[in-house]
């Protein structure tokens, strides 16, 4: 049985299954928002809190090495232009996805890193979910740990936040579910053994126990989409970035936790 089929059975067995759901999804009031950190067991919280035991730190250390290793025809490293990431990258991840004028749309942090790799370093972009890309993203994002997620007030982002919101609220897949039905309307309840989180992307890339590795927000979205038995988008698809943007806007003001640990 595939995980998607398993998810379908679990969903069908739950009291808040699709038919019983109240139809309009209401956004969570700002003062009721919670990081999924709060839903975790004491052991898993401890794993995230201690940098000598958080496995996500292994990726951050790899990322630090990638940051300072020259790459591509330019022969330059990230550090050669950006200097010390601790200052130059502080709060940067909290502002992503950000609008890119050349692309005419928002790019997420992974895409921005790969753009600089192609354009500035003249190197091959890293593959989606590759160890190097996740490591470098985790290293950059960790420089925002404890910083509030930006409000994404750039007016050019507004239509893309709307697109992301529409995707979040759209019923999809064979289960005919929307993201909002779980994460806006039923957060805090149990979905089998899991607490349904509010889905705030405060700690990406995350070290997910289910994956036993670090992974991106796009991987997590893909995971949910498969769970709803819908067709996932290809990595890097604009739909994912729009959803990432909407979720970050929805989590505005919450503190970054990268590299977070999640079950």
């Amino acid at each position, binding site marked *: 049985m595939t995980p998607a089929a398993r998810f379908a059975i679990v969903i069908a067995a739950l009291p808040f299954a699709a038919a019983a759901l109240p139809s309009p999804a209401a956004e969570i009031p700002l003062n009721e928002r919670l990081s999924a950190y709060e839903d975790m067991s004491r052991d898993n919280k401890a794993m995230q809190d201690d940098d*000598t035991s958080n496995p996500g730190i292994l990726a951050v250390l790899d990322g630090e090495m990638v940051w300072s290793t020259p790459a591509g025809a330019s022969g330059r490293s990230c550090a050669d232009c950006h200097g010390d990431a601790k200052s130059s990258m502080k709060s940067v991840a909290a502002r992503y996805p950000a609008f890119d004028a050349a692309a005419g749309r928002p790019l997420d942090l992974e895409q921005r890193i790969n753009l600089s790799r192609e354009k500035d370093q003249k190197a091959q972009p890293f593959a989606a979910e590759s160890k*190097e890309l996740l490591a470098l993203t985790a290293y950059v994002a960790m420089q925002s740990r404890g910083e509030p997620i930006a409000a994404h007030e750039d007016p050019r982002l507004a239509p893309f936040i709307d697109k992301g919101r529409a995707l979040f609220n759209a019923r999809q897949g064979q289960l005919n579910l929307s993201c909002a039905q779980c994460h806006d309307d039923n957060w805090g309840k149990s979905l089998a053994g899991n607490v349904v989180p509010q889905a705030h992307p405060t700690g990406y890339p995350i070290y997910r126990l289910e994956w*036993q*590795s670090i992974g991106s927000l796009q991987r997590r979205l893909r995971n949910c989409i498969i769970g709803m038995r819908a067709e996932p988008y290809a990595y890097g698809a604009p739909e994912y970035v729009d959803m990432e943007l909407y979720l970050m806007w929805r989590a505005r003001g919450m503190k970054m936790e990268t590299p977070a640990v999640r079950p």
Partner: protein
Amino acid sequence: MAARTLINVPPKAKRGEIIQIKTLISHIMENGFRSDNIGKPIPRDIITAFTCAYNGEKIFEATLYPAISANPFITFHTVATESGMLAFQWTGDNGFSQEATAKITVE
């Protein structure tokens, strides 16, 4: 990328003090009981042994089996006896071998 290790040893300790040592290493710990999506068995690839030596003397050992989580985390204790070097070694399937060291000053 080579395996990444993360060792936590207090840099300074008093003679006779019991110190905690924490170790983390990147490794997939493929358990050998799984199949890929076309049903082909995925061969086992795990770390099977871990040792720690304090100025050359072995002070701790562990034998790991497939039930150890990916990116093995092991903590243990030792008595700080003298200044010097703690040497860590992980070995495993497919010739895997990784070393790391940490300095300690004992006053």
